[in-house]
């Protein structure tokens, strides 16, 4: 059995609030084998009566020793996310295994331009890619289009502002679906072909495209990219959940 399949007992070592309903869990995972940006872990919770359940969470951080960061959006009435988002406390153990999934992953040796399109919590694995790009000193041009409901729903807001300023070759564009910041040039609307065309790469640059978010969002954006002439083989998707954001 390969090491990534072993259940490991991680400890929560720090917490960062990203929004009112999402927080980043900084975990220390003994003997963590490292990971690629875009991969996820399986988290297992076990109740006192032996009942146990698992969910997948993307890794938010670039590979960094035994530290693994997850960012969890609390889903109302969810079984697992409210526990990770509210109950789990510093020092508590949590079981996980991974890293899982080598397809929705960005490799630092890759030279193609990259287009990242996130809907809501779908930013998590894409942020890992932005962080891994910086960690590797890669100069591959990256563009991120990040769709959120309101300005208060942006994860990693300060870091994204800083990276867009300091990381040469990284562009960040936002789309707001419910409320826009003061002075924003357009009313709130769903991400459409205009935004993808304006802030993405032309298809003939042959970018690697990574789309992540709720199922409906990913379906829409993937269709747009294909309609704009992107080769479906270069459009990689990760669907987080059933409902629209």
């Amino acid at each position: 059995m390969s090491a990534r399949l072993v259940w490991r007992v991680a400890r929560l070592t720090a917490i960062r609030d990203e929004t009112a309903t999402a927080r980043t869990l900084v975990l220390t995972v003994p003997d963590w084998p490292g990971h690629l940006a875009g991969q996820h872990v399986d988290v297992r919770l076990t109740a006192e009566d032996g009942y146990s359940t698992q969910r997948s969470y993307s890794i938010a951080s670039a590979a960094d020793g035994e530290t693994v960061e997850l960012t969890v959006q609390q889903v109302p009435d969810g079984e697992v996310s409210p526990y990770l988002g509210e109950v789990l406390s510093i020092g508590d153990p949590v079981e996980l295994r991974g890293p899982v999934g080598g397809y929705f992953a960005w490799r630092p040796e890759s030279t193609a331009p990259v287009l990242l399109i996130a809907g809501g919590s779908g930013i998590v694995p894409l942020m890992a890619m932005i962080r891994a790009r910086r960690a590797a000193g890669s100069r591959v041009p990256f563009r991120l289009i990040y769709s959120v409901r309101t300005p208060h729903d942006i994860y990693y807001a300060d870091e994204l502002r800083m990276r867009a300023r300091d990381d040469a070759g990284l562009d960040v564009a936002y789309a707001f679906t419910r409320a826009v910041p003061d002075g924003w040039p357009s009313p709130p609307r769903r991400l459409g072909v205009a935004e993808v065309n304006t802030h993405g790469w032309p298809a003939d640059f042959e970018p690697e495209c990574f789309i992540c978010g709720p199922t409906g969002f990913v379906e829409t954006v993937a269709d747009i990219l294909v309609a704009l002439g992107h080769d479906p083989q270069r459009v990689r998707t990760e669907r987080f959940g059933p409902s629209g954001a």
Partner: protein
Amino acid sequence: MGIISPGFRGRPRSPGPQLPPGQYLTEDFPVLSAGPTPRIPLETWEFSITTEAGTAYTWSWPELTALPAQTPTVDLHCVTKWSKLGTGWRGVSLDTLLGDVETAADFAMARSYGGYTTNLPLADLLDGKAWIVYEYDGEPLHPEHGGPARLLVPHLYLWKSAKWIRGIQLLLDDVPGFWETAGYHEYGDPWREQRYQGD
């Protein structure tokens, strides 16, 4: 059993239906696919079974839908942990499609529009265990869920039920498909929790 998660109780549990280990029940129909959803016009759609000798048996959309149909009601188990019980489908049994096919193969590779592949033992497609389905819940199968037609092999994890099915290639030797190459289990029995290689 895992270590106890302090303060975790889980959702109130009734002694409900038995689920495979590690699965939880959902009423939704989540989607797992690696790329965009292919859109395949019915006029050009076809499905073929190709033997190890290279002989191809091909059905157009009118030909497939004219075959005797079955309406299986089955439970689905996805490797991403959700299970959905009692789903209703309409389609053609692989027994019907393989009925006239001459082969000595033991393995099958399902191939999809869009390039997806997944491998299965041929035996798992026979004896009323697998269908090419084109209706879900009384409606034409939505592209997101694999329409116009997908393979349905409900006794294995759902990634074996190739969406947007285009053909089945019969093989003498087992060859890993798309997710199997990426580290998923070569067989994928939910009741034995065969998620990843080595499980």
